[in-house]
């Protein structure tokens, strides 16, 4: 198992390197630069800015200096300063030395904010929203799937599948504004926009207070995000439960005279939910990072908008940072899922 994990980790690094390479190539292939404004800058200033951000260096040099800034830890005697180019995600004091790691670079759109600032202030909001959404997706999807499977080919089954199809059919750009209109504007039960937590965050990710003042902001957007994904989980749960119920060991359980409830809850569900775990990995990565529309509709200060604005602004470090962040989330959550999978199902052995 540990050999497998090490192999997977190496493979992950290769994937991340390739993702970084493709993104870098693609974004530099898009014509236009970060400082091509409609108001033309004086050429000297433009040249100075480009020189300051090393945009005149050969592309391969830019790429490898970016990679080294991100991946190779620095050891200096200098304590962390407030300068934008000295902003590392990790700062450790060891004796008289400082270990600094992961500098994702500046944001061209702002002179004082760096990509690390975006990770510090905006990522936690998206992370919280995405986590709630995954929870809601599972809380709606799994019972719906079980309910459908237990009433296979009867009307509750059709109702469950219909609901699941509704979940995938009503997109965020439709459901979001309508829910804001009903609950935020007409009924005034919930705030129509905003988020209940502000930086600094506990451990860099979690909100400091968990009261209604926090949750009331999260209810609508998490529901909108989670509802769409619950369909996937419902269908998967239903299919896998249906398959498990026809297995031999369930027949054995029936033959022993167990009650239907005991058969389903003790024997069938445990195995039926294993495949569901596999979709949670990609789902989590997508919901934590790719919540652009929901954040736009609900005015949530999350990461989503940087995915889009960074591209139209040619804000190269932000593009690299956000795409790499997504890729890291995806490969890590996939690895975690695979490990959990092997743990849940002892028949699976990775070699």
């Amino acid at each position, binding site marked *: 198992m540990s050999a497998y994990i090490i192999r997977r980790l190496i493979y992950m690094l290769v994937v991340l390197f390739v993702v970084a390479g493709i993104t870098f190539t693609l974004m530099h292939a898009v014509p236009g630069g970060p400082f091509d404004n409609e108001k033309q800058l004086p050429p000297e200033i433009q040249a100075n800015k480009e020189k300051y951000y090393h945009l005149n260096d050969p592309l391969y040099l830019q790429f490898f200096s970016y990679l080294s800034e991100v991946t190779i830890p620095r050891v200096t005697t200098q304590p962390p300063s407030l300068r934008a180019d000295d902003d590392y995600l990790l700062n450790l004091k060891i004796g008289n030395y400082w270990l600094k790691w992961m500098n994702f670079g500046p944001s061209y759109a702002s002179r004082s904010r760096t990509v690390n600032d975006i990770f510090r202030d905006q990522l936690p909001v998206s992370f919280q929203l995405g986590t709630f959404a995954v929870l809601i997706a599972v809380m709606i999807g799994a019972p719906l799937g079980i309910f459908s499977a237990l009433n296979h080919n009867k009307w509750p089954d059709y109702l469950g599948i219909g609901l699941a199809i509704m979940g995938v059919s009503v*997109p965020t750009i439709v459901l979001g504004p309508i829910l804001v209109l009903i609950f935020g504007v007409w009924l005034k039960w919930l705030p129509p926009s905003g988020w209940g937590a502000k930086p600094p965050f506990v451990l860099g990710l979690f909100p400091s207070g968990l009261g209604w003042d926090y949750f009331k902001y999260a209810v609508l957007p998490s529901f909108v995000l989670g509802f769409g994904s619950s369909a996937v989980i419902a269908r998967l749960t239903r*299919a896998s439960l249906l398959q498990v119920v026809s297995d031999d060991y369930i027949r054995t359980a029936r033959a022993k005279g167990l009650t239907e409830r005991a058969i389903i809850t003790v024997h069938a569900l445990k195995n039926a939910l294993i495949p569901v775990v596999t979709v949670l990995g990609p789902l989590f990565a997508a919901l934590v990072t790719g919540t652009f529309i929901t954040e*736009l509709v609900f005015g949530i200060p999350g990461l989503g908008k940087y*995915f889009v604005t960074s*591209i139209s602004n040619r804000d190269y470090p932000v593009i690299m940072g956000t795409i790499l962040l*997504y890729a890291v989330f995806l490969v890590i959550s996939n690895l975690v899922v695979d490990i959990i999978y092997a743990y849940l199902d002892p028949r699976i052995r990775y070699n």
Partner: protein
Amino acid sequence: MATATAKTLRHSANQPVRTKSRSLWQEAMGRLVRNRAALTGGIIIILLVLTAIFADFIAPFPYDKQSLLHANAVPTWITKVFPWLQLYAVPGEQFPMGADAVGRDLFSRIVYGTRVSLAVAFIGPIISLFIGVIYGSISGFFGGRIDNIMMRVVDVLYAFPGLLFIILLMAFFRTTLAQPEPGTFAYYVGELDAKFGGLLFIMIGIGLTGWETQARVTRGQVLSVREKEYIEAARTIGATNRRIMFRHILPNILGPLIVLETLSIPSYIYTEAFLSFIGLGVNPPTPSWGSMISDGSRALRAYPNQAIFPALALAITMFAFNFLGDGLRDALEPRLRGTQG
């Protein structure tokens, strides 16, 4: 229901007395028609196609006809549903669903918007199917090292956030081909895109980002079919690789591919709506439901009708394709009913 009918069909196939033999596809068709949800979906899609074709006759106004006197106009029946609109809305009986902020008829724009959504729904799959099937079947057919490398490439592409990739591609297309030299290839592509109202690049982008799953499924199918006896038989009588591929393998793996593609149509429609929503989609004034929802949600409180109607149109269309896709899966693979996301 569908499994039950499948069983009776199979049962009747064992009966010695049979008047007419039916092909697999005919059987599937029969199962599909008997599935009421799928049938409804199919009928809605046919109606949508007709709407798109005859949009010129159905829409009371051209989609770009502005009338600033009737900006945000609302017909009487809508003021009955949303009473507060009486206080400030401009009356406009000639607009069945009201008018938008520059006085264009919403109903006409929704009707014309069908064209955009359906074009994406039908052409996006063709591109992604084309790339995915070729890629996947090469990978599965040759196997070994080629297969390994090709599938690793797909793995890497999976690690990209899809929408982000498409936004990058759109930015690339739009700026590269913004003002090309007349006479060059880029110029003609740009012209073509302008004729489609900006739709061409959207479809290319969707096709280029949507093929990975197709490729994986195709590969899996090819791998499972490759070892079958009839392929062996074809090989012994000296059939070429190409012939085996196109005559023997492809027809046998088509079912799952069609199902997968139908089920991914809603996500293509949604991608277009999303791109238009954030302003990277079709060029104005070409109407797209996504951009209409985006415009409408800005005036959500004052004029809810401007967002609700295009939203309904989008949701109904996605419903229809989802139901049809679900039904197709039941019909083509009765055993798999309810599996796959």
